[in-house]
């Protein structure tokens, strides 16, 4: 009968089965404890950003400088994955959210209001506010504290196909004061459609989650989404209904592709521009690189369209500290460091972003390409209205954005008239804000 070798302790003493299991158990427990992340003396921070490789590198470079100046700390840059709200809510619930989160103005309000973010007042130098416009500072500031610092921005201007505008015979404006008014723009878009044989123009819409990008149209007509206070649903005003009517004409006249601007559509405006199906595109700076690659020297830019008022999209990101952070003071210090003037310059230069700080222009940033166009975007940022910022960064906006996407679809695709849409949308918005 085969016998199994009996384990022996060092020194030759025989190990009983129980002793062996006990020793093994203690060893495994020790190994697990070592992996458990028990305090080692180093304060570790996690910063989560969108999956943009250049930005991830920039954050890590800045974080490494911060760590060098703060012995006993470490910072890891992570990627925010999947659907943002699902990702963030579940991590907050598990107390596993990153220490620092890169978050859009449209997302920040909910989490600032429900206690998921940490008040940064005191950690951010007081002079920071002086270098921000009122709208941009309002993104993170609430009555009860400062819940984020706006790091960089972007907005919409008008891209045009040089060949198309040449055939139409128009000279695109170059200054904000000369921006195309709605009627002029519609006329040009109709002509552009004749030239392309497809559509007139495209919009930088990116699916239902970016429905808010259409809101500048409301503000250009003197309307508001949530009143001047940023809290009272007001899409049933004459100005807002007028804006809905303007938007509906884009569809009814075949000036835009329904797939470009509907919840179920998936055609980015820049793809239509690159394939010659449109001659004009209202979009953010992210189109510069693909247009440069696909249509080098064949495109130009003009200011965003306007009507009785001016407005452009509120793009960009803020940095905020979450309640999951075990070292909120240190995390707040890192936020202040990343949003310092020098680091904003570096970040915007590498990633081709627009600075949120008012004192910076394209020359300060030193963009390697299209400095003139980037300055045009920086100038356009001054037209973003405070009331629109209040609405979009308010506590209800994450929910209201879905309502906006639903009702724009119903109006633009012909299910509801602009007046019906305004009334029903306002009612649906009230059911959210009075919840």
């Amino acid at each position, binding site marked *: 009968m085969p016998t199994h070798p009996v384990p022996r302790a060092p020194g030759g003493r025989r190990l009983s089965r129980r002793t062996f299991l006990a020793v093994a158990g203690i060893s495994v427990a020790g190994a697990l404890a070592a992996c458990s992340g028990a305090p080692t003396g180093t304060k570790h921070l996690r910063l989560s950003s969108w999956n943009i490789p250049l930005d991830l590198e920039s954050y890590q470079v800045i974080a490494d400088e911060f760590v060098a100046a703060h012995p006993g700390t470490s910072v890891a840059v992570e990627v925010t994955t999947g659907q943002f709200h699902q990702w963030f809510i579940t991590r907050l619930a598990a107390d596993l959210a990153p220490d620092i989160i890169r978050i859009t103005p449209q997302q920040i309000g909910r989490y600032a209001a*429900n206690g998921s973010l940490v008040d940064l007042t005191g950690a951010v130098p007081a002079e920071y506010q002086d270098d921000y416009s009122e709208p941009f500072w309002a993104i993170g500031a609430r009555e009860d504290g400062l819940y984020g610092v706006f790091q960089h921005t972007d907005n919409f201007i008008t891209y045009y196909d040089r060949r198309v505008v040449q055939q139409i015979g128009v000279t695109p404006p170059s200054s904000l004061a000369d921006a195309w008014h709605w009627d002029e723009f519609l006329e040009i878009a109709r002509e552009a459609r004749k030239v392309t044989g497809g559509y007139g123009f495209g919009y930088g819409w990116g699916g239902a989650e970016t429905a808010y990008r259409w809101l500048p149209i409301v503000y250009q007509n003197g309307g508001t989404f949530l009143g001047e206070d940023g809290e009272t649903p007001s899409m049933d005003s004459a100005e807002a209904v007028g804006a809905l009517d303007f938007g509906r004409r884009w569809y009814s006249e075949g000036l835009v592709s*329904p797939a470009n601007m509907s919840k179920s559509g998936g055609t980015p405006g820049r793809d239509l521009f690159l394939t010659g199906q449109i001659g004009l595109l209202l979009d953010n700076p992210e189109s510069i690189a693909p247009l440069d690659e696909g249509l080098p020297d064949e495109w130009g830019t003009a200011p965003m369209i306007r009507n009785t008022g001016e407005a452009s999209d509120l793009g960009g990101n803020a940095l905020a500290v979450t309640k999951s952070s075990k070292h909120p003071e240190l995390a707040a210090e890192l936020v202040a460091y990343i949003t310092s003037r020098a680091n904003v310059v570096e970040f915007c230069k590498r990633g081709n972003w627009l600075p949120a700080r008012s004192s910076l222009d394209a020359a300060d940033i030193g963009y390697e390409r299209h400095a003139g166009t980037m300055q045009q975007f920086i100038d356009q940022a001054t037209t973003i209205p405070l009331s629109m910022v209040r609405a979009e960064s308010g506590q209800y906006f994450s929910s209201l954005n879905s309502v906006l996407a639903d009702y724009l679809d119903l109006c633009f695709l012909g299910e509801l008239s602009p007046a019906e849409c305004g009334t029903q949308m306002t009612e649906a918005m009230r059911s959210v804000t009075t919840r």
Partner: protein
Amino acid sequence: MSPRDEVLTRRPDDGARQPRWAPYLFVGPAGLLFLAFSLLPIVIAITLSFQDTATLGDGEWVGAANYETMLGDPLLRTALLNTLVFTVGTVPTAMAIGLALAVALNRPLPGRGLLRALFFVPMIAAGVVVGVIMSWIFNPDYGVANNALAALGLSGLPWLTSPNTAMFTLIAVVVWTRIGFCMVIYLGALQSIPAELREAAAIDGASGWQRLRRLTVPMLAPTTSILLILNVVFSLQSFDVIYVMTGGGPGFSTTVLIQYVFRSAFADARMGYAAALGLLLVLILLVFTLLRQRATKRAEELL
């Protein structure tokens, strides 16, 4: 008594004493997993459905308020109607095509194995991948579908951008992903039908159609019953393809119940209401399963 009879009649206590805890050790790991990942979440979801909370945890007790809200929620009615249309559109179609393919591929055919594999492949693909690829195919501006129509001299269709066509397109895509599954299950069942029965029917003069209708289909009834339940469950749980392809739009035309649960939880931050909607979905599934079980039992009794 032969040794065999001895084994058959021996009571467990007759031989070496079996430890009583042994069965629990076998069941334990699976039981713990079920407890942690199924039972506990169900209990939490039930608790959550009586709370008002924007995030997970720390909610305010509101009694049956979430269930009362459901009664007067017009979007829920739309979602339920869409769910019904989607389920009725996908389940019988996928099963009928699956059965037809199974019958066709149950015969000796050149390349039969390859064809079976090809029809099954969409079932393996992740829903998100299917959704993205189908969004490209049905894109009205540069999709393959409209280019094919244009090549035939026909005008393109707003596959996903019209409330009149979006649901039809979704149903077609989901049916495509599911026919392979139905085909494989039916193939297995077809191969278990004794060949003598078919031969006897043929000798008696039954035509191919008669053999299918009077012999094959009734013999497949238990399989059909299981497939029906599984397909209804799949349809009620269809989320990824719809989320990627239409996001519930245009308007609300493809918003089904599970989309509405997700939207309530994460877009609207109404965790309590989303939990109540989720329980409604469970209830619908339970009622359907019980009804189907009862119908099957009655059919078996009649036979």
